């Protein structure tokens, strides 16, 4: 992993060829397909990509043109990125679940001339917006199913394009020409454009050069000592910078194997089968796993349940110390060993994390309890703080210095500065070259001295670890001047398994309130055990006993807020449980499942009003989009409850606490 390799092979096609030379027989890609893990070694991948590139070239793809890549994680889609880069074209991965509208914008904005897609669904989607994409010349698909009768003048099977390419490459002259096309590529060339989903406004195209991405990959590989023996499962959207770095760039750099699951539904089983050594998942995934664990254990026999919880207690006491290599009394060590046989080992096995070397979570704050749980059972889970504009890495947690409530120290080669208003700024060789076709936004984001504004507010603690509070612009104030960090509050609540989504209100108001979604799995299970009968989410959400339970959680959060500096004023005074689940299809969440606070406040205005006018309940009707695209209206009467607040105990905070 010496940085020397990055110099000699300064683009991804060059890296691929290096891998094909140095580890030709090692498996590079696996894809669970037709019941087994179909595998390709580096030599085969290189050959496929070469043929693919030739095929694309013969279809007329030129240096600098953009290729949209749409679909779930499939080997051929990753290969298409490399094939495009081979010719000096720029891949533009697009979120596969974007609706036609979003896709039309991205493809049009990127001026994509080719689209490489997974299946009929995506082909249909693009055909439906074809007239808005004047630049699009050809479409390629991976899965031929259902496409047999389509007009194939502009539509091609990837397989066919590759075969045509392979045939053309039999001519040594053409092969040489293709080779020199690849060699013409430089590290400073634009390597990829990644569109950020963005909480507001249109997506922005983040331009990253080969060099940027290679540096990012290098940071990660050397930080955790990744090598060719590692296994990663690629299941996060290919359009997201994390997947691009972990499943593409680092795999190319370190030469490890990328495993593509059979379908999004089988990821957990597939992960277990493959036994990944290097894993990445947003907190949500870890949270779901833990929720399912706890829910299932409720159904276990009393003895087993007690044993389970006893050993989780043991893990809580000693697990993290053992993982961090700290000294632990012999008894603790022995108990932990026993627990490893009875509980932790089997749990890791069920999660598919038996062979895990290092796991990362990022994207959002992870609950400290949740984070510690995984570490305590022997999963080396770490947090990182990153952004697309940074080519991912900003801060990382070094081994042995892992704290649940910080995101770690600046990553290698990254410099960080905290602005006067608390905003985090960073600079590194891997930061982006600008937003595609948007110099204004670029100028807004980049400082004159080459720092990038993260948009997040945070501070360094005494150990030099960065702590992120919230989006800089979101940290607001209550009318009395108290600090109001909505995300901070939301996260505290979301760490309870019963709560799925939270939206906090308070900016420019007298006090803080929340509207939340319960977690249907966890609460549904709770309901079953407590003989609470319900027919729908709406009914369960409105149940008084559920309100009681949530009130307890809020009470705990208030207590903890009261004890933190500057946060005491933001205690939650009133709350309600939303009658429907927040949904990306309704625009309430972003595609990366973040809440869109402003939109929600507008959409649920009557409820927000009720939170502040003291009424006991409010009526609301909301339009919803069903899975098949139809629309409907849900109406409900939503109850509002008061919560208890506590006197502020920490210093330096205004005392606004009073009993409710």
């Amino acid at each position: 992993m010496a940085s020397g390799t990055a110099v000699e092979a300064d683009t991804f096609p060059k890296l691929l060829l290096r891998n094909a030379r140095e580890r030709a027989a090692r498996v590079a890609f696996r894809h669970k397909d037709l019941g087994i893990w179909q595998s390709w070694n580096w030599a085969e991948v290189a050959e496929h990509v070469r043929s693919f590139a030739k095929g694309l070239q013969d279809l007329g793809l030129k240096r600098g043109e953009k290729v949209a890549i749409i679909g779930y994680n499939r080997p051929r889609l990753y290969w298409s990125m490399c094939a495009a880069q081979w010719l000096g074209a720029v891949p533009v991965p697009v979120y596969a679940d974007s609706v036609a509208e979003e896709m039309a914008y991205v493809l049009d904005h990127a001026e994509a001339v080719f689209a490489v897609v997974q299946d009929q669904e995506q082909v249909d989607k693009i055909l439906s917006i074809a007239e808005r994409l004047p630049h699009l010349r050809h479409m390629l698909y991976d899965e031929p199913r259902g496409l047999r009768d389509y007009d194939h003048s502009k539509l091609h099977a990837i397989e066919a394009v590759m075969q045509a390419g392979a045939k053309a490459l039999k001519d040594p002259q053409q092969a040489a020409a293709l080779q020199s096309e690849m060699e013409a590529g430089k590290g400073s060339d634009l390597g990829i454009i990644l569109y950020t989903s963005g909480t507001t406004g249109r997506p922005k195209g983040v331009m990253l050069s080969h060099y940027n991405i290679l540096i990012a990959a290098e940071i990660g590989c050397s930080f955790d000592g990744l090598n060719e023996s590692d296994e990663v499962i690629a299941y996060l959207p290919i359009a997201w910078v994390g997947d691009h770095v972990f499943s593409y760039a680092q795999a190319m750099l370190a030469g490890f194997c990328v495993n593509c699951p059979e379908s999004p539904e089988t990821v957990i089983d597939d992960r277990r089968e493959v036994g990944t050594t290097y894993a990445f998942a947003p907190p949500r995934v870890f949270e779901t796993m833990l929720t399912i664990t706890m829910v299932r254990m409720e159904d276990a026999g009393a003895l087993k349940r007690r044993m389970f919880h006893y050993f989780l207690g043991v893990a809580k006491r000693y697990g993290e110390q053992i993982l961090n290599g700290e000294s632990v009394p012999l008894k603790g060590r022995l108990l932990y060993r026993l627990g490893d046989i009875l509980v932790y080992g089997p749990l890791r096995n069920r999660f598919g994390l038996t062979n895990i070397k290092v796991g990362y979570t990022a994207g959002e704050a992870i609950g400290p309890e949740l984070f510690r749980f995984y570490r305590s059972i022997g999963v080396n889970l770490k947090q990182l703080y990153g952004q697309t504009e940074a080519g991912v890495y900003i801060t990382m947690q070094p081994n042995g210095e892992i704290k649940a409530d910080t995101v770690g120290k600046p990553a290698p080669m990254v410099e960080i500065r905290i602005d006067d208003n608390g905003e985090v700024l960073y600079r590194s060789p891997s930061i982006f070259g600008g937003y595609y076709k948007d110099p204004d936004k670029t100028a807004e984001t980049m400082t004159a001295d080459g720092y990038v504004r993260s948009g997040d507010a945070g501070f360094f603690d005494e150990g030099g670890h960065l702590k992120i509070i919230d989006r800089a612009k979101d940290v607001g104030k209550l009318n009395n001047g108290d600090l109001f960090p909505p995300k901070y509050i939301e996260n505290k609540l979301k760490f309870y398994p019963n709560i799925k989504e939270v939206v906090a209100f308070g900016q420019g108001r007298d006090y803080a309130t929340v509207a939340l979604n319960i977690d249907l799995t966890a609460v549904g299970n709770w309901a079953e055990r407590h003989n609470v009968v319900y027919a729908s989410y709406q009914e369960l959400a409105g149940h008084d006993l559920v309100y009681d339970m949530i009130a307890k959680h809020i009470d705990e959060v208030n207590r903890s807020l009261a004890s933190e500096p500057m946060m005491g004023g933001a205690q939650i005074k009133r709350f309600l449980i939303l009658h429907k689940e927040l949904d990306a299809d309704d625009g309430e969440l972003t595609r990366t499942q973040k809440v869109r606070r402003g939109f929600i406040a507008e959409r649920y205005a009557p409820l927000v009003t009720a939170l502040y006018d003291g009424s006991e309940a409010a009526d609301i009707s909301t339009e919803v989009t069903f899975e098949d695209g139809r629309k409907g209206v849900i109406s409900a009467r939503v109850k509002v409850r008061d919560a208890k607040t506590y006197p502020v105990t920490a210093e330096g905070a205004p005392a606004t606490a009073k009993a409710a």
Partner: protein
Amino acid sequence: MNAEPMNVTGTPLRDKGEVLLSVENISLRFGGVKAITDVSFDIRKGEIRAIIGPNGAGKTSMLNCINGFYQPQEGRVVFKGERRAKMRPHRAAAGGIARTFQNVALFKGMSTLDNIMTGRTLKMKRGFFWQALRHGPALHEEIEHRRVVEDIIDFLQIEHIRKLPVGKLPYGLQKRVELGRALAMEPELLLLDEPMAGMNLEEKEDMCRFILDVNNQFGTTIALIEHDMGVVMDLSDRVVVLEYGRKIADGTPDEVKRDQKVIDAYLGVAH
């Protein structure tokens, strides 16, 4: 890797001229009860042929005659130019006729995979002793057929239930597995007995799509019995209408829809 899901005979798509099977003056009695009386019709290569009619019209009996489960007392079945008064079920299977059943007739104790693998039985040639060794040729043969079966599983999108016993699957999935088992025989003629009975709307749509895809991609000729008139009208190229064991109409969906006898017998009453 998987450019073509199945190696079906390379017949050009939908050449609907040739008659694949014809039923000539069939009569079937059970004791004194007449189930079918003097019915004739034909099924052309590549088409989707629907058999409709009110309950007890003799539709299932008709299918049973076609694949040899019942032996009509009078009349003949001509399949691929071969005229025979008697068809034995396994002969029909060997000749390229596969079918599904009105009430799912899966092998309940076996997994989805094994169920579909049974559809390959006729194509597997290795003898007893190779099977007992399960190495070399017998294993190669199993693998070769497993590949075909996996293509079918992929085609029908039932990957997630591959290794589950079929007995516990929801009804809609069972029907899909049964279709898979029939497809595994690579039939020339596929008989579907109410493929969408008892399904919800979404499952029906899926099944419709599969039937069209089978017909379209593999060129398989399909004869189906169905009650949902919408489905019949959408799917089929030609429709034959039975009532009390007699044929009362035969033609394109539009022709049949306008036929007064059909309207009286069926459409007007039942739907």
